[in-house]
């Protein structure tokens, strides 16, 4: 039951990330999957761990190409451990 809920949550978090496009530049909190793509899971973790400051500018995501199925289980987009670091 717990694993099923985790799977559900991995799907749900995608919708919960706020894709606001304010000013500011890309930060170093992203993890590059390859030259063109950014791993979405680690990007979100990086935002929360490194950018939670009152003085920080939002990260401009308009030019990022997100990879949603990277991480420890590439291809399934169901990495149950993706957000353990912040939960």
């Amino acid at each position, binding site marked *: 039951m717990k694993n099923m809920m985790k799977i559900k949550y991995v799907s749900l978090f995608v919708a919960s990330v706020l894709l606001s496009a304010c000013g500011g530049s890309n930060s170093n909190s992203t993890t590059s999957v390859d030259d063109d793509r950014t791993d979405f899971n680690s990007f*979100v973790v990086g*935002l929360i761990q490194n*950018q939670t400051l009152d003085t920080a500018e939002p990260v401009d995501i308009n030019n990022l190409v997100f990879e949603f199925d990277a991480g420890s289980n590439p291809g399934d987009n169901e990495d149950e451990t993706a957000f353990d670091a912040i939960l």
Partner: protein
Amino acid sequence: MTIFHHKKNLIAATITTLALGGISTLATTTALASSHREAPFITSMPKVDGSDFYMFRSYETDRENFITLVANYYPLQVAYGGPNYFDMETDALYQIHIDNNGDAVEDITYSFRFQNVVNDLQLNIGSEQVSVPLKNIGPIGPGATDTDNVYVRQTYTLDQILGDRRTGGSTAVVNAVNGSSTFRKPMDNIGNKSISNYSDYAKTHIYNMTVPGCASAGKVFVGQRDESFAVNLGEIFDLVNTNPLGPVDGKSNVIAGTNVLSIALEVPITCLTQGSEDVIGAWTTASIRQASVINPFPGAGNNKAAAVKGGAWTQVSRLGMPLVNELVIGLKDKDSFNASEPMHDGQFATYVTNPTFPMLLEILFEGTAVAPNLYPRTDLVETFLTGLTDLNKPANVVGSEMLRLNTSIDAKPAATQNNLGALGADTSGFPNGRRPGDDVVDIVLRVAMGALIPDATIAPNRTAPLTDGATLDATEFSNEFPYLRIPTAGAIN
């Protein structure tokens, strides 16, 4: 007088043949008001949805040297919406910005953060201590600290930031009486069994505040209020399915009886103005953390919140002049507008210089309504982007959308205010600031159709007394800070 004929069949045909996306957009938007649910993205975040913004010279007795600012959030509350009712978002930054030199950049920001205070009320049930499911289990009040029966309540802190909203110098605003930097927000108006005299109870949450660098104390209040906007909502968005030349009070204000959350400040004029410039501009924003991760296993303890939020504060709501993002900005750019800052408003200029709304009225009321033939619409640029010459235009203005107030113009008592503001020869009202009793829907309708254009050949409808049919005036509101009415109660017996 020009008569506007309502032509439903022609409207439908026009939509089909001209394929004007703006019309169908107008018809399918779910809620019109000053700025209630006006943009697609903000509809998913009602707690940070700024719905109305007011700024005016205080007209309470002996407060003529103060400016009142009120920002309404979380609109369309149904009063009986328990058990959680309508708290402010704790992971949000609610701000009111002041530009006091006309450069389209904030010089002063008042920044509010909210906190939940939890008192885990439990009952002894068969020798077990069990937490209750309700927000209160007994009467609340009469004073602000009489909260023993409350499970969760909210407090807030308020900072004054000078300069850039993120990096400027920040100083806490404190209670002028006891020096505390924490203020209490009243519980919502649950009903008269929970709170027997809501008006008196709420008043105990009005605080005298010490504004950093300011010789005189101001006032602050945050809490639930009755919806202060009036609009014939349904018919306006149903392709203006009403007679715009009917009686100004001939239709119902369909959002009456709903509630909002109001953030209200009263600050001495001299603490908001700079140098010899009497005009100040202001707008309100709400920001949330850029990222959010839903917790699949939330719990009651620390670090078990239903979601983890982090990242930089990211603006999701912006409101200065009423109805701008509602009726001026194109649907595709509404989210962008909410995330933007006035200094970058050049990107939206075409929506003001070449507005679609007057043309929509011309199409909807073919043969009678005529959009002003003036492009660029310099009258609207002055109204929305610079302030009006000799009224509320700063000496060195950078065009940008915000509410502008000439603080040198005396306030008028409620009984003598004209709810058409400057259009009614009352320069102490909208668009010189905005008071609760200003009928901004009727004003904006008339200005959009050319009320400020002197040449009738350019603006044939310039004198038409256009109205949505729902009105309001200052006598419907309190004469004292925070001016807006007490909220509709969830239950009365």
